[in-house]
């Protein structure tokens, strides 16, 4: 008998009720033809309130979370999510309908305008759209802006250059914006300089998408020269801001020659990731690209804040309504709590923490790229008797969430560690101690790691079977 929770459908019993709603107090006279109406939803849950609460409490116990412990998932910036922000985002006075008249939502429009203004100040870009729903949505939006700008200049061009260390979303976003992707190999240092760029910088290049600091945690030191070379070629520089945490208050992408960038509010600005979203991916652009940003745009008018819904030069609308407003609320609250006194401290502590971890583990693990580390450090499993996956799974047994594994693709058995500024020295020392124990186990008893995890609610799951014969839903009468 499994100790895991049943499915909600397996708890269901005919006649159980979980909520108490009244029938409407108007006459029961429908105005829809009978053949357009459905009957009862077959097999839909019928569970009492108390059983639902216990069901989800049981599920909650099976989850690891930032609230529970260290979560050094590289590239994901799993920092602490301040609790006050949840209260602010839940406030009744902010839950306006998106089509409420503008004079009744001045507070909400101001929240959006403030965040835009302060993102401008932090990044040196000329303006932002807050519409994109997530990082990848921001990339897509940004690449549409690039394309529309170049199109207006006479030729949208054909190719977007992307380093081999980039997130998979970059090539996918460029592709859906109508571009062909050309991959650039990183240098032995792990970066893109003029030597790497030049051979690829043909007249049909629309843009380079560069993550900075890149996914190795290394700052792209040649970025200004790269921007200059791109601009001389009539091409643009897109910066993926997924790793902006390392630069917060330290340097502004707009000052480095970046034309378009996106920010992940759910990373750098501490909004909770919710098990995979919602995120928010504001896109900032240089002044010459402002007209192409998506609608709607909030702006300050003579009698308060107003909204521009249509603009012939804009790429159009990328999303319903205004964007992920309640994520924007949390990000703004975070930024106001930090204030100008502390934004730089965030980057400093994040980078200090990453370098501390690097200093304590670099004698024990292979460090293929030795350039200075910013917010994250990437080790390799070269020379170890076990694979990265085994170390990651063994970490689970010690109650620590593993780092990102097997990414970036250019590192063999990558272990990508991003502690973030949220972690105390004590937490880092515990993690380092656990890593040392695991590396000892790897030498003495590697089978222990290959069998790991054994202390988690389930053991390693058969992903091959899941993909070969997908079972994506429960069905009554089938074996689950």
């Amino acid at each position, binding site marked *: 008998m499994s100790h895991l929770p049943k499915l909600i459908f397996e708890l269901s019993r005919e006649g159980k009720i979980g909520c108490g709603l009244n029938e409407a107090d108007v006459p029961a006279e429908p105005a829809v033809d009978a053949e357009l109406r459905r009957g009862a939803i077959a097999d*839909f849950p019928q569970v009492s309130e108390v059983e639902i609460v216990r069901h989800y409490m049981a599920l909650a116990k099976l989850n690891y979370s930032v609230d529970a412990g260290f979560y050094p998932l590289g590239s994901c910036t799993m920092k602490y999510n301040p609790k006050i922000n949840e209260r602010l985002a839940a406030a009744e006075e902010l839950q306006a309908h998106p089509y409420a008249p503008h004079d009744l939502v001045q507070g909400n429009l101001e929240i959006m305008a403030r965040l835009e203004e302060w993102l401008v100040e932090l990044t040196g870009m000329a303006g932002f759209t807050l519409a994109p729903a997530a990082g990848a949505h921001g990339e897509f939006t940004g690449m549409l802006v690039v394309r529309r700008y170049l199109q207006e200049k006479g030729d949208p061009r054909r190719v977007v250059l992307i380093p081999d260390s980039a997130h998979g979303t970059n090539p996918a976003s460029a592709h859906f914006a109508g571009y062909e992707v050309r991959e650039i190999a990183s240098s032995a240092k792990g970066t893109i300089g003029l030597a790497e760029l030049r051979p690829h910088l043909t007249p049909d290049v629309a843009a380079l998408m560069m993550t900075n600091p890149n996914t190795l945690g290394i700052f792209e030191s040649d970025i200004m020269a790269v921007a200059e070379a791109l601009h001389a070629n009539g091409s643009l520089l897109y910066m993926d801001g997924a790793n902006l945490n390392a630069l917060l208050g330290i340097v*502004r992408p707009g000052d480095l020659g970046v034309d378009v960038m996106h920010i992940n509010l759910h990373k750098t600005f501490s909004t909770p990731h919710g098990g995979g979203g919602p995120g928010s991916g504001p896109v900032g652009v240089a002044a010459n690209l402002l007209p192409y940003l998506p609608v709607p745009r909030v702006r300050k008018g003579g009698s308060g804040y107003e909204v521009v819904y249509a603009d012939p030069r804009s790429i159009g609308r990328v999303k319903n309504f205004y964007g992920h407003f309640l994520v924007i609320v949390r990000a703004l609250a975070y930024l106001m709590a930090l204030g100008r006194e502390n934004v730089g401290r965030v980057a400093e502590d994040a980078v200090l923490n990453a370098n501390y971890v690097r200093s304590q583990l670099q004698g024990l693990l292979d460090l293929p790229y030795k350039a200075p580390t910013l917010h994250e450090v990437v080790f390799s499993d070269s020379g170890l008797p076990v694979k990265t996956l085994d170390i990651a799974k063994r970490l689970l047994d010690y109650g620590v969430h593993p780092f990102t594994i097997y990414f970036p693709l250019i590192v063999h058995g990558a272990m990508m560690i991003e502690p973030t500024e949220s972690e105390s020295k004590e937490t880092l020392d515990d993690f380092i101690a656990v890593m040392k124990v695991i590396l000892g186990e790897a030498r003495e008893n590697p089978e222990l790691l290959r069998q790991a995890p054994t202390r988690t609610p389930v053991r390693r799951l058969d992903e091959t079977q899941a993909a070969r014969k997908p079972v994506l839903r429960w069905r009554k009468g089938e074996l689950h």
Partner: protein
Amino acid sequence: MRYLPLTDAEREEMKRAIGIADVRELFTCIPSGQCRPPLGKLPKALSEPELLAVFREFGRRNGFAAALSFLGAGAHSHFIPEVVSYLSSKGEFLTPYTPYQPEVSQGSLQAIFEYQTMMAMLTGLDVANASLYDGASAAAEAVLLAVRRSGRSRVLLAESLHPEYAAVIRTYVQNLAIELVPVAVEGASGRVSVSDLRSQLDDATAAFVFQSPNFLGVVEDGKAIAAAVHERKAFAVQVVAEAMSLAYLTPPGEVGADMAVGEAQSFGLPLGFGGPYLGFMAVREEFMRQMPGRLVGETRDLDGQRGYVLTLSTREQHIKREKATSNICSNEAWCAMRAGMYLAVMGQAGLACAARACHLNAAYFVRQAAALAGIRVVYARNFFNEVLVEVRKGSAADLAAALKKKGILAGVPLAWFDAGQKNRLLLAFSELHDRAAIDRLLAAIGEAS
């Protein structure tokens, strides 16, 4: 700073361990001339009480809260049982990342699996994904899926599609070799003109995208539409902008739609000034391996125990890069989990009760409005919970403004989307309204028009 746990003493200790004297040495890789911008326009740091006060002030500058609202058009107020807020705000659900390590993520994974199942049941289709950004982007992804699956490049869009959905579809395909063709709506019925649809369908047509209930509030004759579309071996894509209708109307799968996409904000998510909401996509099984977005699947662990994992990931950007079915990575996982909680709490009877009340309240308004001289209900039958009215004199915006003064947000003037539609107003009803509220609306319209 309260979010930064390192003490100065610890920072010193760590710097010594790293072998630096000053933390600035860690940033020498950055062009020095550009370092440390002044950032004078940023606010000064606020304490927690100050933060509360500032946001209370933002709230005070909003003025909608006391109003009786009949706004809808893709964002709908419904009752949210307390259990939903209580459970979904738990840190175990709110603060994990995407479940890349399934051994410590079974809670999120099982909750999403249950959500997928309930969306499949509601839509009458085989499988649902783990979420997309919102209704509009889900519609755009459906267009891309239909094109991919069919190998055809022409897509028909009903003119009764939510204008923002149509706009987002246009944005998504603007640089791809996809032709979008409008299909007319019959003025008399408010439904898609099946004869125009037939005349537009050809062998290059990948899909017809129609909304039901449509943007005019009218429930389409989905069976006639699907039959016409299938004759030309194209796909019927039904958009549902008000998911509550799924609990009252014949589901898309039963009507003959191949895919259903739309907005599931109605399932337990607050209005939140437009987001985050919950895009959903449900499809017939043949589309499964071409779907965008995350999918949770059932499997077994080494001991043979049932468990859940993210699956079919070879469709996705982190494996396939530019050849992926979509660029989506972060989605609306928490919203989907919360919708699952909402659907479980409402249950079979509760959801049907809420959906029925939405419709009966709208139907009551339509019957009573017949007595009003100043407005005309445009489509007085076969709506779900949204009703389009025409004002006989003046503009819909004037009527809305007059009612606003009485504390009523009467509906969305269609001029919001199309400046030419000056005299039309779209009203939405829900189980949160009662007879007294609707009578108040009717009386106010009577006085104002």
